[in-house]
């Protein structure tokens, strides 16, 4: 059965995956997907959208944000003070009301992503024990497709399997866990460090070879063990890594060691900006950028991809699965602090923060993020992110686009930040400007490829008809913050920021093939240490509304 | 006689079970209609087991049967009653901007009836 044909006519199309760089093309849509133009010239579309003079791109993909689940929801509860003064999201006849601030409510999250031309987003840090919660929130997050990464870097079963040198058991467990949570990819947050935090006051690991007590494993072993298992499970997105020592001066050596620990296996280092610092001992006088040194390594190692974690000036909320980091930040900012440890699995830290352009540290963080975009030569391996809301809101993406496409404006902003940035980073020397095609890569085509989403991030035949149509403008922030039209799975969902049809969106997850023989061992271990029953742990089909299993294949 | 006490309404197992059994069952009703008094206060005030007293708070007044608290569960000067219709009648409507009326630690005057 073919639904009605929908034609987007005469737009200037950017589709880097298929080598289309600003050419005038027609797009044909049926059943929510891109289809070939009918060969029969008498076939007329039921509907035509005249896109002449407009820029047509695939829908945006945010591959690293925090938008659902226990940590995000706690942050919503924790920060009433910012909502009262934030933009109001009003109820309409078909859409729910909501609240903004750094941590928007679920409905508002869906509407705002879609309003900005983003049609897919992945939450980056979910303890699998709370997976059910995420699926419930996803069901109340309309307009976008979504998925999440499962926290595994401090998982007891995994650390035990590494300790006992049982790679097959690790692999099977990882397959089971991703399936049980209906998650998308394994996520490592401060491998080993969160477990030490649970054991000791102010505890953490400090290098790749620190030993995690009781489990007798090191971060390096955890990274390597999971990288190998992910590869053998053929996960579409191998491994998402939040390295050790986030935010600490001098942490760039840890980051470099983490890249080396992959030993050529595929890995994505996330919010790399927060991991690219020189200097030592929290001394502001020595804090500096090591983006160049790290970017050189990335440029010569195609197994590695990154997203930036751009810092934007203003107030926001820090939220992380890195428990000791939350403690560190709350002491730095003297703010209210939430911390929660999840049994067998993970940690969590939340604290309000403010990035000030007069602060040397914050200004450098801002500059280092931009250095990363400008220093990675291959745009297919660097992805736009603010690590929403950690570096700033996802709502800042249009502003980042302008910073990357407009060198003059970038240098104007650079003049307003702490002047020492010019000495401690090389941002002032970088004159690269992104093209529209490159922006299209780092905001949709690239993340789709890195995530292994073959039907997203491009406009070829068979792709999901997730399409954003912009009115060109010299000021790229203006162009990108308010798309003319946003189309989701062939449906017109947004016109000029107003929601027309609040479609539900689907959940993307994986179901890797694994050795089911491991389940008996998992069950024994589970019943011994978890506070809920094994039978009640896996997320069942009835929690999945619209959803799609992404294949694990080469 | 009349004397000032501090009243602590709270949960009990019987009251909790009574919610499931039904609020109009005798078991539930008898549990929430029983005021625990420390044995020393019972003796001092010459209160008999099951005797009805009047409790008056700033907001309301109830009549309720007394029973001696077990062992040393209650210190003298403190009264206990299971949450329910009666305890709520002694609670004020003002929440002092918190949403929560003061529901424990209420000042009450206890009077013998008749």
């Amino acid at each position: 059965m073919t639904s009605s044909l929908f034609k987007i006519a005469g737009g200037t199309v950017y589709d880097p995956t298929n080598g289309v760089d600003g050419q005038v093309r027609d797009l044909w849509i049926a059943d929510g997907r891109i289809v070939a133009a009918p060969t029969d010239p008498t076939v007329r579309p039921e509907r035509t959208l005249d896109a002449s003079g407009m820029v047509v791109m695939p829908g945006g993909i945010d591959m690293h944000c925090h938008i659902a689940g226990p940590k995000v929801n706690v942050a919503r509860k924790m920060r009433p003070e910012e909502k009262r003064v934030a933009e109001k999201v009003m109820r309409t006849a078909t859409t729910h009301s909501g609240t903004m601030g750094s941590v928007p409510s679920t409905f508002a999250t869906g509407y705002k992503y879609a309003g900005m031309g983003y049609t897919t987003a992945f939450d980056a840090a979910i303890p699998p024990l709370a997976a059910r919660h995420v699926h419930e929130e996803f069901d109340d997050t309309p307009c976008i497709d979504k998925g999440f990464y499962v926290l595994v870097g401090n998982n007891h079963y995994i650390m035990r399997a590494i300790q006992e040198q049982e790679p097959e058991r690790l692999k099977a467990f990882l397959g089971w866990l991703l399936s049980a949570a209906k998650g998308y990819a394994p996520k490592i947050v401060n491998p080993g460090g969160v477990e030490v935090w649970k054991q000791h006051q102010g505890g953490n690991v400090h290098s790749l070879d620190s030993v995690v007590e009781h489990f007798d494993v090191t971060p390096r072993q955890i990274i390597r063990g999971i990288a190998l298992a992910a590869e053998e499970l053929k996960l579409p997105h191998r491994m998402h890594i939040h390295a050790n020592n986030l935010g600490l001066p001098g942490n760039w050596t840890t980051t470099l060691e983490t890249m080396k620990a992959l030993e050529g296996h595929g890995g994505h280092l996330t919010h790399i900006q927060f991991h690219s610092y020189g200097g030592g001992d929290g001394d502001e006088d020595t804090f500096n950028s090591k983006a160049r040194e790290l970017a050189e390594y990335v440029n010569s190692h195609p197994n590695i991809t990154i997203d930036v974690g751009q810092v934007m000036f203003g107030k926001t909320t820090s939220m992380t699965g890195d428990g000791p980091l939350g403690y560190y930040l709350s002491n730095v900012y003297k703010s209210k602090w939430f911390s929660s440890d999840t049994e067998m699995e993970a940690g969590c830290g939340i604290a309000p923060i403010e990035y000030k352009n007069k602060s040397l540290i914050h200004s450098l963080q801002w500059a280092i993020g931009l250095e990363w975009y400008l220093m990675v030569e291959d745009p297919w391996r660097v992805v736009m992110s603010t690590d929403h809301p950690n570096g700033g809101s996802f709502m800042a993406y249009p502003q980042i686009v302008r910073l990357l496409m407009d060198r003059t404006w970038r240098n104007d902003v650079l003049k307003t930040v702490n002047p020492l940035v010019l000495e401690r980073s090389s941002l002032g020397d970088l004159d690269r400007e992104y093209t529209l095609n490159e922006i299209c890569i780092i905001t949709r085509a690239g993340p789709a490829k890195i995530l292994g989403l073959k039907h997203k991030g491009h406009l070829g035949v068979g792709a999901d008809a997730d399409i954003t149509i912009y009115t060109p403008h010299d000021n790229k922030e203006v162009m990108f913050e308010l798309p003319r039209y946003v189309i989701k799975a062939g449906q017109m969902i947004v016109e000029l920021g107003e929601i027309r049809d609040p479609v539900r969106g689907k959940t993307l997850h994986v179901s890797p093939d694994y050795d089911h023989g491991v389940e008996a061992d998992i069950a024994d271990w589970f019943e011994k240490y978890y506070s809920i029953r094994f039978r009640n742990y896996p997320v069942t089909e009835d929690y999945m509304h619209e959803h799609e299993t992404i294949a694990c294949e080469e | 006689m009349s004397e000032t006490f501090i009243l602590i309404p709270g949960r009990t197992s019987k009251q909790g079970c009574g919610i499931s059994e039904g609020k109009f069952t005798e078991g539930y009703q008898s549990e929430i209609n029983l005021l625990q008094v420390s044995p020393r206060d019972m003796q001092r005030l010459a209160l008999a087991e099951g005797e009805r007293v009047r409790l008056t708070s700033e907001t309301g007044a109830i009549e309720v049967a007394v029973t001696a608290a077990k062992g040393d569960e209650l210190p003298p000067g403190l009264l206990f009653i299971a949450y329910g219709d009666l305890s709520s009648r002694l609670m004020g409507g003002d929440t002092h901007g918190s949403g929560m009326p003061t529901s424990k630690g209420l000042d009450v005057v206890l009077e013998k009836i008749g």
Partner: protein
Amino acid sequence: MSIATKKNTAPDPSLKIVQDATCTFCGCVCDDIDLSVKDDHIVEAKRACVLGKSWFFNHHTDTRPNCLISGQPATIADGVERAAQILAGAKYPIIYGLSDTTCEAQRVAVGIGDWIGGNVDTTTSVCHGPSGMAFQGVGEVTCSLGEIANRGDLIIFWGSNPAESHPRHFTKYSLMPKGMFLPNGRKDRTCVLVDVRKTKSAKAADIFLQIKPRKDFEALWVLRALAQGLELDAASIEDETGVPLSAWQDLMDRMKRAKFGVILFGMGLTMTRGKHLNSEAVLALVRDMNAYTRFVAKPMRGHGNVTGADNVVSWQTGYPFGVNLSRGYPRFNPGEYTTADTLARGEADAAMIIASDPMANFSQAARTRLAAIPYIALDPKETPTTRAATVAFTTATYGINTPGTVYRMDDVPIPLRPAFDSPHPSDFEVLSQLERRVKQLKAAVRIG
């Protein structure tokens, strides 16, 4: 109540077994209950506590009408129509309760609150609402219950009486379990109880500190001072708190020596003078303690899914309770939009009460107001609130008759495994019908 506890082994073919069912009576949300079901009766609830057994054994199917309008039997459709008219026509409608139903139903209820521009509030506001406000002030250092089971070597209960309100907390989570780092279970832990009366929980404690009523705040600040090493005047501390300074110092020494300390606090703090300031003192003390060792705090939540209600209201509106939607977007203000207040001040002009009994639990002023306005009640049981409702729906019992999700007191989401069908509709079904109708009525108003 008939409970057949069979010890013989021959399987009864008419017996249905539901393994790892979830008890939703209290915030412990035990998910390890094995139910035996016969003829729509639960005849055995293995591992359930006294409250859980009473919960499982007393929710039979019954012949009460699905719906009553002004006390007269009515169809669900008529009930929904009348309810929708009441809510859509009101100037200041309020929705309240929600802590004893599934998240699926809660989500619809909050949606209704949005469409009608009303107030959404849950029983949190008269339970640990003050702790929620304290959390907004200072944050919270906490963990899932399994962390306590595996690591907690000093367990302090403050103003809570789990022996009567959460009977399996000791055995399942906090005192008895043999944990990963506590191989000897209870022997590896020290338990302290702080309360104004020597409750039944005192038997489980190694140390009982009986403080003066309404002095929790002062006692907690004594500990905060001792944590900092400040010198305090022994005579005034004992006079103020009712406990000698030496006992407080001993407790602080233990807290600092503990590897993983825990304070589990109850409504002894939130319902007493000081309220959110009492909770804030606990949360601040526990935060302070993390400069010396690992320490966590956790409110002992009462109702089976009150934690789910907090979560749902928060993810949909951004605020945990006491939310007003009358201006077309969510606003939050405890004391203003909380139900004890909107009723007692005579502001609400219509209400929908879901799985809660304000006619028994609220102040007289609030009850008087509720009795004077049209309101809708949904409850599996007959209560003073359902009896006086304009429209009363008899609904299926969550967890016994209906599937769905509940959140344990530590925010862990747990699925329900129903035992048998109910002749009554679920809260979710009634609310979904009501939401559709309310949206229609509101859309008509907009057009008209």
